[in-house]
């Protein structure tokens, strides 16, 4: 097969990695936005966030059978299961004082370990295989290059999710309450909205987002014994790079991670093992508050 170069030859080989970086970045965005919400809004450091993604991933592996109906079913089951797990976490966290990050970290880390063991006990130690709908299993031509059809569709779906998330936060009453809770939690409490309810709602919503990312992203970051750790690590890097409470910052950080992990690896394969963390250290050295500023000045 001879590909017709779409641009100058120096750039052409890196088109696909750059495109793939967008897919990877959007996946990291959807997966990490839940953690950013938890941390930024409810002030909860949820180290079990990777587990919520893994629940979605394992659901996808168990339910998907190559048909469209199973994809819808997997999405529904994965989102509900992960949201329920998030709500359960909120319940477990009730006795822990808000803002006591050490206790929260210990509790949620324990839950992550126990939940991870339960998933392995239930689904086996091997990485389960994910079967996407047959129509998406092939590849398509993009500017003279072959690219996996599923990942191309995923970019569209994840972009829609990101826009929907933005609209919910900016335009709905729930979104307003959440933003108000970031700005002035005492005032929100005075208005008669229980912070505990906001916390439970935020954790459940974070779970739903992670669950959706887990189901849709299963063919990209697949379910396995170390999936939860991988996703938690990437999400924490997003928090460090993107700051808290700004969706633009989160999106920017996630896309940066995506490009570093794909385009960066294509450009500098020998640096692949430490590229992500070198980039993180560089950003922190230059700009300690991450890529974007916060809404809240503390």
């Amino acid at each position, binding site marked *: 097969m001879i590909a017709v170069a779409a641009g100058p030859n120096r750039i052409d080989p890196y088109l696909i990695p750059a495109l793939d970086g967008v897919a990877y970045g959007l996946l990291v965005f959807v997966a990490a936005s839940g953690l950013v919400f938890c941390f930024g809004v409810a002030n909860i450091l949820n180290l079990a966030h990777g587990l919520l993604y893994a629940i979605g991933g394992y659901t996808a592996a168990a339910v998907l059978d190559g048909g469209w109906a199973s994809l819808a079913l997997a999405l529904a089951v994965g989102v509900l299961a992960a949201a329920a797990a998030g709500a359960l976490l909120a319940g477990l966290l009730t006795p822990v004082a808000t803002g006591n990050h050490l206790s929260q970290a210990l509790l949620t880390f324990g839950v992550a370990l126990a939940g991870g063991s339960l998933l392995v006990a239930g689904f086996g130690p091997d990485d389960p295989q994910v079967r996407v709908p047959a129509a998406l299993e092939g*590849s398509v031509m993009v500017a003279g290059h072959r690219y*996996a059809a599923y990942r191309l569709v995923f970019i569209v779906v994840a972009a829609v999710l990101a826009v929907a998330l933005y609209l919910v936060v900016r335009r709905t009453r729930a979104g307003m309450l959440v933003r108000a809770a970031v700005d002035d939690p005492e005032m929100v409490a005075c208005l008669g909205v229980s912070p505990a309810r906001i916390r439970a709602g935020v954790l459940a919503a974070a779970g739903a987002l992670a669950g959706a990312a887990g189901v849709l992203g299963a063919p990209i970051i697949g379910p*396995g014994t170390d999936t939860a750790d991988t996703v938690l690590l990437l999400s924490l890097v997003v928090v460090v790079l993107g700051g808290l409470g700004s969706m633009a910052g989160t999106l920017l950080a996630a896309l940066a991670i995506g490009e570093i*992990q794909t385009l960066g690896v294509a450009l500098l394969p020998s640096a692949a093992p430490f590229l992500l963390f070198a980039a993180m250290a560089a950003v922190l050295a230059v700009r300690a508050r991450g890529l974007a500023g916060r809404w809240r000045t503390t």
Partner: protein
Amino acid sequence: MPLTTPWRSRALTAALLATVLTTSTACGDDAPGTSAGGSIKIGLLASLSGTYQAVGTEIRDGFQLYLDTHDGKLGGRQVDLVVADEGNGAQTAVPAATKLLKQDRVSALTGIVGGGSVAGVTPVLNETKVPLVGSNGRPELKDVSRIWHTSYLSDEPGAAIAQHVRDNVKGSVYAIGPDYQGGWDELRGFTDAFDKIGGKLANPDGKTTFTPFPATTNFLPYFARIKASGAAAVYTFYAGSAAVDFVKQYAQSEIKDIPLYAAGFLTEGGVLNAQGEAARDIYSVLNYSPDLDNAENRAFVAAWKAKHDGSPTTYALASYDAAAVLDRAIGAAGSDPTPEAINTAIGQLGQIASPRGTWQFSTTTHSPVQKWYLRQVRQDGRALSNTVVGDLATVGR
């Protein structure tokens, strides 16, 4: 839990403890491994949990199949097989092996999936002077006087296929593999032999590209580089879930039409089912294929299929052969098959008939001198399977 345990449960604990102690003392009184009834104790150590569970299970089942088809006897003696779990590596393997060697006092040890586990167990073997007939992992070892392997050395698959790739690929070859000891050995085997016969690597710096392991799950950035290098073929080695990711993404990538050659583990056993259509046409090199046409293999495959779903893998075969080696060595060790006598007998076995074809132990490495086969993933009835398309070199040193 209450601070004071009720008297009855304390009594029960004491009784249990006493029973355990009595039993272990009784074991300690036995002569090592053999007993008056003409039976012999063999220890099998394999990963029955963790990452390598699939391989460990095949190894256990391969050995058990030999026993089942030979009246449960090796060398005319009834076998008391003690199975222990190797877990994920040396950390769990060494305590398990120590129990087999010191408490159960087995006459010989077999199995062991990981090379690191073998390295960890070696000092205990030397201390107890018990031979190991390993059926998979084989690290670099200084002293192999009591260590034998029915598998292969990690650099042999690549060395065996190099000439075929040189003859059939018109152009340079891109070498890529996982960044750990096993990956280095597998790829070095290929690149050294390929370089010696005048082959040219397509990698920009002339060196193999190694991907972080096990962190790499997305191979697209590397595929872009392979595409840009203008390679006429790719040689690789991955196993387990990395093999599934690599093959599935390769089939959907812009280099899907570049021929892919690999060490056989890329498409061996369970990973082939997971790869499905994406694995079609991949060439691989291995010391065994279930469709080999010889009498031993037909009997082996038929016996295997009677008990298990699917075809036997090279892992099951190596363990089956380990049982065959022990069978002949125990028989040759005379009326008192001590571990020492068994070890000496293994060294004098000569040619060993096997489902993979006849092979023998190398006198220097104690691993097989054996023929390697070129296989291609093709349709076989309803499923895809590795089909032998030719003989490659006989390798061993």
